[in-house]
């Protein structure tokens, strides 16, 4: 029996002339796991919203064709209630309760189960997800991986038949990715059909059975995962390791020198413990480590946003930072202002700032959006804009915090090409924080491996090529 059956599905947003999805048809059997892949903007998330009934109830658009789940035509969100669970990419926003146990109990208690039944359900789910130790914890004190577990748990507590996850790996470090994959396998074994929308295909492929590949809203492949490899390669999706080795010998001029830096944050002493490092002019330096290792704290210290407890830091230049979530970098009303105002504030005249802003927008392929509100851009475009905006203030050092977050392979390569361009042109020093093993393997003249606030290893790479 087909669990999901989609026939000739097309969808067009009301504010767009073009169809976001065109003639999509596929079906899925019970216990199968499906990967929905495709470049940024190919319509993957919209398809997820349609399958779950969210689009039918909340998105303003025109839907053609049919979507059936367990033989039931999905016309609104209520039609999928109890059948489908949905874990959003920004899963932290879907949690209402203060404590983990209350979050897990929310669906069950509202369905009319007794407190005893609710507690039994919670214990079963927490054992399945290996999170009994989290039950009494406060939701917003959890790490990303733990919070995602809670989001999954809160959705499967009423035993839905299908679970949809939108880019579940995007915020996770290696350990959390492995844990999540184990959980998804267990859910699959327990009879839940899994649908995953994801860019990090290499990581997710082992647990899926079927693959649906979209390009510009069109279905270009649907079938067994073993037959999908050629299409992945043709679209340059993230099936292989990142291939980018544009190392260049940096100058001998030291631009940052930090010795024995200690940082306390959120009342915790030693988020960063006695870290020493240096960055040369024109060097690309990576801080690689799991979530919570102290990478972001170190960057916030370098940028002057938080202070150190002790240690000595010598910073010879202006620093700019691009946050993991580019939404936090974006503040103005238009794409143009986002680049023009920092340029103006850096001391350029109005005319010079205008020319410089236009150049940057052109370089980052954003000129066509200059009058658009930045919050309306896609994830990839927002990241490019955040980088352009950071560069507009003409820094000597640019820090990027988890720049691969939500980016497809082409997007990552595009960002790296831009960074290499400004490194070569300006002698820009670049610091990248990442938990992405593949990025670490490909990028960085020097890699500081950081864990629990300490640098545990330094990799000097590409020196033979200089």
């Amino acid at each position: 029996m087909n669990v999901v059956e989609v026939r000739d599905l097309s969808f067009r947003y009301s504010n767009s002339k073009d169809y976001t999805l065109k003639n999509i048809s596929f079906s899925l059997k019970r216990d199968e796991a499906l990967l929905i892949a495709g470049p940024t903007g190919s319509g993957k998330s919209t398809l997820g919203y349609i399958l779950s009934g969210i689009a039918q109830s909340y998105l303003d658009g025109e839907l053609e064709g049919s979507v059936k789940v367990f033989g039931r035509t999905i016309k609104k969100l209520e039609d999928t209630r109890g059948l489908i669970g949905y874990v959003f990419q920004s899963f932290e926003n879907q949690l209402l309760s203060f404590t983990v146990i209350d979050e897990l109990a929310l669906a069950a208690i509202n369905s009319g189960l007794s407190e005893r039944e609710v507690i039994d359900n919670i214990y079963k789910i927490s054992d399945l997800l290996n999170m009994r130790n989290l039950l009494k914890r406060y939701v917003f004190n959890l790490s990303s991986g733990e919070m995602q577990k809670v989001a999954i748990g809160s959705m499967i507590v009423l035993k839905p038949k299908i679970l949809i996850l939108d880019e579940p790996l995007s915020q996770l470090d290696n350990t959390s990715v492995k844990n999540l994959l184990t959980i998804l396998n267990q859910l699959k074994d327990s009879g839940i059909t899994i649908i995953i929308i994801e860019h990090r295909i290499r990581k997710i492929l082992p647990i899926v059975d079927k693959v649906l590949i979209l390009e510009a809203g069109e279905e270009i492949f649907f079938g067994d995962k073993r037959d999908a490899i050629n299409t992945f390669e043709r679209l340059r999706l993230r099936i292989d390791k990142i291939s980018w080795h544009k190392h260049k010998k940096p100058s001998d001029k030291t631009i940052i020198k930090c010795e024995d830096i200690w940082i306390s944050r959120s009342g915790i002493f030693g988020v960063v413990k006695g870290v020493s490092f240096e960055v040369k002019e024109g060097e690309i330096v990576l801080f690689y480590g799991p979530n919570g290792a102290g990478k972001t704290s170190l960057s916030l210290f370098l940028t002057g946003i938080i202070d150190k407890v002790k240690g000595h830091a010598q910073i010879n230049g202006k620093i700019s930072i691009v946050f993991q979530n580019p939404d936090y970098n974006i503040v103005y009303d238009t794409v143009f202002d986002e680049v023009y105002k920092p340029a103006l504030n850096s001391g350029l005249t109005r005319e010079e700032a205008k020319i410089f802003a236009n150049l940057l927008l052109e370089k980052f392929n954003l000129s066509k959006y200059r009058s658009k509100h930045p919050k309306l851009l896609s994830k990839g475009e927002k990241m490019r804009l955040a980088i352009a905006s950071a560069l507009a203030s003409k820094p000597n050092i640019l820090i990027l915090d988890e720049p691969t977050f939500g980016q497809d392979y082409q997007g990552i390569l595009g960002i790296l090409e831009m960074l290499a361009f400004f490194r070569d042109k300006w002698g820009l020093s670049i610091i990248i924080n990442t938990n992405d093993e593949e990025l670490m393997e490909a990028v960085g003249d020097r890699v500081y491996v950081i864990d629990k606030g300490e640098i545990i290893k330094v990799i000097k790479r590409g020196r033979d090529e200089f």
Partner: protein
Amino acid sequence: MSFREFLQYYESNSWLHRANPFLKFIFTIFIIFIVFIVWDLHKLIYLTLIITLTLASIRPPKVKVNAYMKITLFIIISTIISQSLFYYEYYVYGKGTIILYLLPPTIPIVREITFGKGVALVYEGFKYGFLVSLKIISMMLASLLLILTTRPGDLIKAFNKLGVPNKVAIAAITTIRFLPITIEEIYSAITALRLKGEKIGLRKIFFHIKTILKNVILNSAKRAYILGISLELRGFKGIVPNIEIGEKNEKVLSDILLIFIMLFIITLIFISTF
């Protein structure tokens, strides 16, 4: 310490955690009422001491205590300075004992602006500032006693008992839950503006308020949208869970102790009044 941690409930088995949430709510309202009616410095000192001791008895995490001490100190110093410098009775009626002149009325412009009074540190203002700061601190600590020791679900029940409709109670709890995140987002927007080279001092920040608020509202709307869909997917009908696992604690003694503290405060106020 982030704003999230500062105001959040923490798990413990203290006597106040075990007390009846409705009684704790009444206790907080009672303290706020007493603070409003009492204008005697000694009584306020006793009241603040009692509330501080009550807070200390539940042994909050050290990190929270440090933050509260800093805030308390800030409130005392800033209120005393502002009141002793700008004591209204001195400027309006000319009453007060001058400790020292910061800007004497002999300076021509100062004389005109201050109607011949100059800018002075006034002893009565100093005393009044201390009194006002005690009032603020007492109210803050009493509210903290409730927030730190009461699970949000229990708070909703306490609101319900007072006749507050469930929808309003949920809205209030959601506000408490998301307020710290919103405050952090305001900081993020300010940081982003600073990184773009905008000057954001105390005076200049007013020029950027529109930009900051717009960002915070857009982010909040996005969060509310996802939260709403997620709740609808889970069939939310307005029931906020309040699940307790582990051993159930005896609450009677805690309630008696809380009532005793309230009676003690009433007696203290009563005895010193008559």
